[in-house]
């Protein structure tokens, strides 16, 4: 087990980050980052001086993963401080790096990828589009559900998952900075167990959907948000695991299903369906699908095609 990452305030970053510091911020966060982080800023990782002792990265999951890989390969002895612009991916606390190679999602997992510290900057949320905040909440929900129900989850993880689900049920799916902490906990939970079919589909379809519908904002968080309801309904057909878990942990199932329904988007799901059907075998072969909490069968694609989830 690692004690990384530490949770720092902005003041702690000022005190504890080693010098010299280099900041790389995503374009959408650059102006806020320049205002709050009075250190040299660089637009690419390649521009960072090689004597950098602390790399501060501000942005979403993809930029954070790129920073984790860059630090690992080029600045292994430096500190990495992650400042997420959005909750959901949990990249700021996870040992996973996801990249897209030749149209396929690839993973690398190593505790060495975990940032040394992460910082919440509430100012970043002000400019955050509401729909991205919404999908970020769905991403966090998918992590806690699949992590807690995973066949690899220990009793301790299941208990932590239940606690987290109850907290999420009392937190609106909107721009609430409480989601940063909830999302980080959900991500830690799933990285200690596994994920399942929601992520198996999301990882198999994301590159395809981005290519086929480049203007429709398809990304990991949107996919996970939309898939929670259909996947949980499919799993409930063959497995009582969710229902048993919810009863044992006093989770209000109806309320939880209400949240999944709010995250569902029928129009987007219809757009996704032909791609799901065409790629169903890849989804079944995906390692993430194979740790789903209920068995997934070839014929299950018919459930998604036939069922009305509205």
């Amino acid at each position, binding site marked *: 087990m690692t004690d990384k990452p530490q949770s720092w305030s902005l003041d702690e970053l000022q005190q504890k980050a080693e010098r010299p510091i280099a900041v790389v911020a995503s374009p959408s966060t650059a102006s806020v980052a320049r205002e709050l982080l009075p250190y040299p800023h660089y637009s690419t990782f390649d521009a960072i001086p090689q004597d950098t002792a602390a790399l501060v990265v501000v942005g979403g999951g993809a930029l954070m993963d790129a920073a984790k890989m860059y630090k690992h390969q080029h600045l292994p002895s430096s500190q990495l401080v992650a400042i997420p612009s959005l909750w959901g991916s949990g990249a700021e606390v996870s040992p996973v790096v996801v990249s897209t190679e030749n149209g396929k999602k690839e993973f690398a997992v190593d505790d060495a990828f975990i940032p040394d510290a992460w910082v919440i900057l509430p100012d970043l949320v002000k400019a955050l589009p509401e729909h991205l905040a919404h999908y970020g909440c769905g991403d966090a929900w998918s992590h806690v559900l699949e992590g807690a129900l995973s*066949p690899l989850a220990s009793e301790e993880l299941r208990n932590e998952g239940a606690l987290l689900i109850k907290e999420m049920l009392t937190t609106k799916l909107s721009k609430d900075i409480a989601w940063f902490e909830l999302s980080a906990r959900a991500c830690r939970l799933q990285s200690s167990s*596994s994920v399942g079919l929601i992520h198996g589909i999301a990882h198999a379809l994301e590159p395809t959907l981005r290519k086929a519908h480049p203007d429709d904002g398809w990304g990991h968080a949107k996919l996970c948000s939309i898939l929670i309801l259909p996947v949980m309904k499919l799993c409930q057909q*063959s497995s009582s695991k969710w229902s048993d878990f919810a009863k044992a942990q006093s989770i209000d199932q109806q309320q939880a299903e209400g949240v999944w329904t709010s995250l569902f988007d029928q129009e987007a799901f219809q757009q996704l369906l032909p791609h799901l059907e065409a790629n169903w*075998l890849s989804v079944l*072969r995906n390692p993430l699908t*194979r740790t*789903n909490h*209920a*068995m997934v069968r*070839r014929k299950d694609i018919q459930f998604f095609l036939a069922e009305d989830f509205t």
Partner: protein
Amino acid sequence: MVNNIDKLSELLTEVFLLEPEEFSLELKRADVETWDSLGIVAMAVGIKDEFGYHFTPEEATSIESVQDIITILTSKGITFDG
């Protein structure tokens, strides 16, 4: 009515993504590429869903063949008499 042999055959065919003709009661782990560590997890989930028995981690990792699965399930009172 579907008997337990048929249920197990269908389940393992699905879990390991086999063609129906690839399944036999003599099938061994070494013969199946997808019978890896994740395949074991998926199989344990399927056995729980279909037969209501949850393999212990030791049982799940010790299984080397379809016959081993039948032996364990039979010892738990699940019959495979055809």
